[in-house]
Structures are given as structure tokens and as C-alpha cells.
């Protein structure tokens, strides 16, 4: 099963290498890995998407918790959470089929962020299914380049299964947006 793991780490140089090294050394999958700072500048949040059975995921969490620089690890999958990924995709497109692409983008609430005579860059944000759905649809076009951010995720405001006391561990943003559905 696919899990989204939030890993808070000391914002020290080399921590990313150590975490990535742990995954490769122990044969764990990384589907995606995203790193960013939290509201506490000394703490970074890594959002790791990995696939494995319960035992593998439990090992991933426990092995991460053995790293000295790791502050806290949480499996967000069990609780209500929001997750997003951003995809930028550049496709070949001219005035003949531009209309059609814009329509598709509208259906997915994707944005056209750049447009030239021969190509177009589209941005789509959403949970994995939506991004993949959009991406699959665009397979009918000539895709020139893509880049994806990997998943980021936060527990929903309602998720109270674990105490959340640290400044970096809980989102101060109480706004709960409903997940985009196509």
C-alpha cells in the first residue's frame, strides 16, 4: 500500500543524503520525496511517498526514527489528510489544437501558464489521481517536457488522533479546502 510519511528533521546539511541513503541501503521504495522548511526555520519537513506492506512501512518509520537528525516521523496515511502534487507539462500545440487543450485543462482546473506558437505549458495541482489522470489524457499529444514536485501533504484540521503540540508539527492554517475532484 502507498503511504505518505511526514518526517521532521533538524535543518542540518547532509540530512537529505542520510535519509535518502537509508532508503537505498535498506531497499525501501521512494515514490517521491519533497523537502521544505517549516514555520520553525531550524526544522525541515520531508514528505516521503513510499509503497510497502505494513511491516515495511513500520520498518521505514522505525529506521527513520533511529537517525539522530530526525525529530519526528508520522504516517499521514492513517489519518484524514490533504495531499497535493504539482505537475508542469509542456506539450506541442499550435493554433489548430490549442482550443482543445484549453478545454481539457479547464476540465481538470489546470492552468495554462505559458503559451507559444508551437507549445504550451500547463500547470495542474491535485492529489495523485487527478494529476495522473490529466497526464494520461495528454498522452495523445506530443509531450515535450514534464516536471513533478512529488507529493506534499498535511493532516486535516479534524485529525486529532495524535497530540500535535510542536510549532512545526501542526499547520496553523485552519482552512480546510475540499479536495478537487474531477
Amino acid at each position, binding site marked *: 500500500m502507498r503511504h505518505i510519511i511526514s518526517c521532521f528533521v533538524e535543518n542540518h*546539511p*547532509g540530512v537529505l*543524503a542520510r535519509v535518502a541513503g537509508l532508503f537505498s*541501503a535498506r531497499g525501501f521504495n521512494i515514490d517521491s520525496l519533497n523537502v521544505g522548511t517549516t514555520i520553525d526555520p531550524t526544522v525541515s519537513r520531508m514528505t516521503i511517498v513510499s509503497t510497502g506492506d505494513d511491516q515495511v512501512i513500520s*520498518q521505514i518509520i522505525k529506521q527513520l*526514527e533511529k537517525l*539522530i537528525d530526525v525529530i519526528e516521523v508520522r504516517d499521514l496515511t492513517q489519518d484524514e489528510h490533504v495531499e497535493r502534487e504539482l505537475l508542469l507539462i509542456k506539450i506541442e500545440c499550435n493554433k489548430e489544437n490549442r482550443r482543445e487543450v484549453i478545454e481539457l485543462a479547464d476540465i481538470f482546473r489546470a492552468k495554462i501558464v505559458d503559451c507559444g506558437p508551437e507549445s504550451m505549458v500547463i500547470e495542474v495541482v491535485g492529489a495523485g489521481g487527478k494529476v495522473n489522470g490529466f497526464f494520461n489524457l495528454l498522452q495523445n499529444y506530443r509531450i515535450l517536457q514534464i516536471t513533478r514536485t512529488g507529493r506534499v501533504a498535511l493532516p486535516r484540521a479534524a485529525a486529532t488522533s495524535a497530540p500535535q*503540540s*510542536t510549532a512545526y508539527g501542526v499547520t496553523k492554517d485552519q482552512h480546510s479546502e475540499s479536495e478537487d475532484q474531477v
Partner: protein
Amino acid sequence: MATHAKPEKVEKKPHPLAGQELQGSDIVMQVLADEGVDTIFGYSGGAILPTYDGVFRYNESHPDKKIRLVVPANEQGAGFMAAGYARSTGKVGVLIVTSGPGATNCVTPIRDSAADSVPVVMISGQVARASIGTDAFQEAPVFNIMSSAAKHTFLVTDENELEETIRSAFHIARSGRPGPVVIDIPKDVQNSHVKFKGEGLLHFRGYNDRMRQLHEMQITDKIASRFFRLLENSSRPLVYAGGGVICSGAAETLRTFIERYQLPCVTTLMGIGSIDTQHDLSMRMLGMHGTAFANYAVQDCDFFISIGARFDDRVTSDIKAFLANAKIAHIDIDASEHGKVKIADWGFHGDVRKTLEELMEHGKDFNKDFSPWVRHCQELRKNYPMDFNRETADLMPEYVLEELNKLIQGEAIVATGVGQHQMWAAQYIDVKEPRAFLTSGSMGTMGFGLPASIGAQTANPDRMVIDIDGDGSMRMNIGELETAVTYNIPVKVLMLNNNADGMVLQWQDLFYEKRYSGTEKNWHTKDFVKHAQADGFKFARRVEKKEDLHAALEAFIAFKDGPAFLEVAVAHSHVYPMIAPGKSYAQMLTGPFIKAREEVGDIDVSNTNAF
């Protein structure tokens, strides 16, 4: 749940040097001294020169409490010396090496120490900060390399954090599941001048919290009652003691525990010494080359109590068949060991000694008569003992160790290399106490024995320290023979020479139709005795005949004038019992000389991918 931990406040006098401006290298030395370091193993070089100068100046200015410096032939030797020091005392072993090759030569002992949970601090010089990343002379990415091998790695980029970093390295090496910590210090940081604070640690919110939680973990009534219910429902409980018992300083507690409830006890290779091998309840080592009686006890038990052990593949072999019909309890300080290999019916994440003490406190009134089972185990031990070809005129390696064992009677600290001789030492040498059997268990590093014995002897000048080695393992770090003479470290080196990498050759016999690729050394012309003599050994002998062995061993043990080297030319033999890789305990091969409980018949081992 992480909270912002405040540094612990301990009311004490400020450090006498607090507030003074010191050179980085002097700060290194001062913190080492404050941490109780009395010996440094290491090799100098360009990028660590300032710190070696610091060692010299420290010893010049502290003639009454000098820190001993032992310089090996190769940095790998220093690493294993520090490990031998740490394994034999429980104190942190320290090595100081230079950048680049100095540091990379230590990858093996650092990984070895991590795999066997040995507290070691390695300090390496690094090129100056401005040169890092330029492929400077003797530059290697030590932080990256060691991050994959050590418990933790530091690169000191800010001279103002140097003293806290070194102090923290000791703290991390010792706490929780112990392990090696590497500190890479750029040369200009060693040369910098900063104000010495005399106290303070780096702040690791998560690690500190986890350590605190570990200490606060308590066996509650409910947790204890579940354990004792399992014990109550069991009629054949068996304790499985690992290296964690020794790390935790829990050997005495373990003895009380098994005596109190009358629980027979097997140990892992790393757990040798956690219980006196001669104890009535001791069933010695289990596993691939465990004793037949230990492995029969594992097959027969219905409740397996794992204490500071980790269900290594050399123990479990066929994991599905292992303990298929027994309940399992698992005590370990490392949360990740719980459920890694086997899911226990009862598990507790905590320090072994504290956990056992608390369990006994809760189980004061527990009484169940396990005497039929204890008698059964004792009969197993009596009926299926270790044995070998006693009739032959050949000098058998097992015989050598049996004879050695009679002479030392559990009184020596024994280190080993890796291979057949290591397994025979585990099977035939009696060990009375923890930290007296030093071996590279998890990594299986050939060449471990000699430097580890030198480190152990340095830490235990009044004990007899014996390195039981093989010719293959000896070659790996043979340069350290000279180190033993140079520093007059009176280790006794017993080398069983079968002119082969015997363990690998045994596998080639069994699994590769005797194609001895790369393992036979019959055409090698090395004269080990001459080598030892050239290095200055005053006792260097070779025994070739069975009838000469006893006298030679006696002289070897009795020799008092420095280190001693005894080579014994032994016949080829296979280590038995053997549970072939991937096979189950029921398929244990006992070989031609050890009595088997049941006929196992031929086992197809020709096509195994298990390692």
C-alpha cells in the same frame, strides 16, 4: 511526540578552563580528557597534524595523566583496536586519523562497530573548509561515506560548535543502542582559536526525546501480567540472550532472571559471555554453527524469550520454519528490531537490565515448576555434546581449542578472527563473563582479531588476552604484530593454519562440488614464525605434531616477556553442527562426529541462493 527539550541543567563547578581561548586541537584533547579517554589509537597525517600536535602538547603539560597513543600499521588496525578497547570495557574507544585514505581505511571498523553496536568515536582530519569539494590532496567525502556506515557523522563547519560536537559524539556513541560516531574536522577548524565553554551538547530534539522516553519506559502491571501469562502457559521456555545483554551491563541480572524462574538459556555469537558457559542453565550458542544441544532446545521450546538479540539470519535460517510452534517474547532497546524479522507475541522496547529488573519485580510471586524441561535440556547437553575426530593422528583444530580451553579455563579475554576458527572458538572456549569474548559477529570482518586483542589488552593490562586467529584472517592485518611488540602489548596470538580460507572452502566442499576457487593456499610460502620474529616477537613457535601441542600451549600461556605468537599447523576439518543456509533447524547436519538425535538424511544444498 517531540517537545523542545531544554539542555539538562546539572549544578556543578564551571570547567577550570571555561572562558579561556583555546586552539581547536586543544579543545579536542580537553574534551577527550574530560570524557575519560586514557588511550587513543590512530595514525597521523597532513590534515590531522594540528590535533596530533595537540596530543603531544597535552601529554607534555599533563605528565601525571597522559593519554596513551598507540599507532598501528594501518588505520583499519586503529579502528579495531578502539573497538577491542570498547568491547572489552564498555567504554568509548577513540581513534584519530587523517583525511582521505586515513579515514577511508576506517570504513570497515566503523561499519563493523555499527553492526555489533560498539561505542567508538572516530576523529578524522579534513582538508581546510575553503578546499572542501575541490578534490584537494587527500580529500575524501568522509561525511557522505561514513553516514552510510556509522551511527552518526559530523562535519564540523563552525569552530564555535567544535567542543559541543565532540561531547555530543560521546553521548550518541554511548546512549540507546551504542554505536560508532565519526567527527570530520577540517584542518583550519583544528587551528582556529575559540573560547572554551567547558560544557554543553548539541541539541537533537528527536534523539534526546527518544532517549528520554526510553528511560521512562516502564513495565506496567498489565504488560508484566501478559508476559507472565505466556510464561505460565508455557512448559518449555527458553531464553535467547544476545549482545544487548552485554551492552546493557545486564549479565548479572540475566543470571538472576534465569535462575529465579529456572529458564535454560541459549546465546547468540554476540551474546557469548552474557551467561557463564558452564552454568547449569547455559545451552551455549544457537544457530548455523550452534551446538547441537542448543539447537535441539530451540526446536523443543514452546516459549522463546529474546533478550537483546535480533533474530539474525545466522540464527533463524529458514525464517518461516523458525519457532513455527513457539510463542515469542522480545526485549530490545532498538525499536526497529521489534517486528523486523519475527512478530513477537509479547514485546518490550527498553533497556535490557531495567526491563528484566522490572519484570522480576512484578513476577515476585510467579512460580511454575519447569524442572522437567530443565532436566530435558541438561540431558540434551549431556547426550549431544560437541565432538570431533579424536582418533586421528592429525592435529585437529577443534583439539587445539579444547586443549587451550583447559589451560585458560575461562580466565582470559579471547578475541577471534573470522571463519572456522571463530566458530570453533565459540563452540569450545568457555567464557565466564561479559566482554571476554570479542568477535566480529554481524560484519564478519577477517582481520578483526589481532587489532581487537591489542585494543583489549591496552584497556586490560592485567588480564590475559588471547587472539584466536586463522591464517587468512591473520594476513589481513598482520602488520599489527609489529604494533604489539612496539608498544609491548603482551597479547597472545594463537594462529590455526590450515593453509586455506577454511570456512569458504567448507562451503565449496558442500555447495560447489569442491571447486576451491581462491581459497586454497597450499602453494603460499609464507613463514609466519619468521614474520613474527622479524617483528620482534620473543616467543614465536610453530607446532606441527599432535604430541607437541600441549607443551607448546603451556609455554605459550606461561610466557610473560611481551607478546607471544604460536602457529599451529592444523588439518582440514568442517565446522559442525551446521544448519545450511535457508534450511530449518530440523535439517541440522551434525557431521560425522557429533551425535545426532535423529537421522536427517541427505539434504539438497546444491542449489541455494541463501547466503
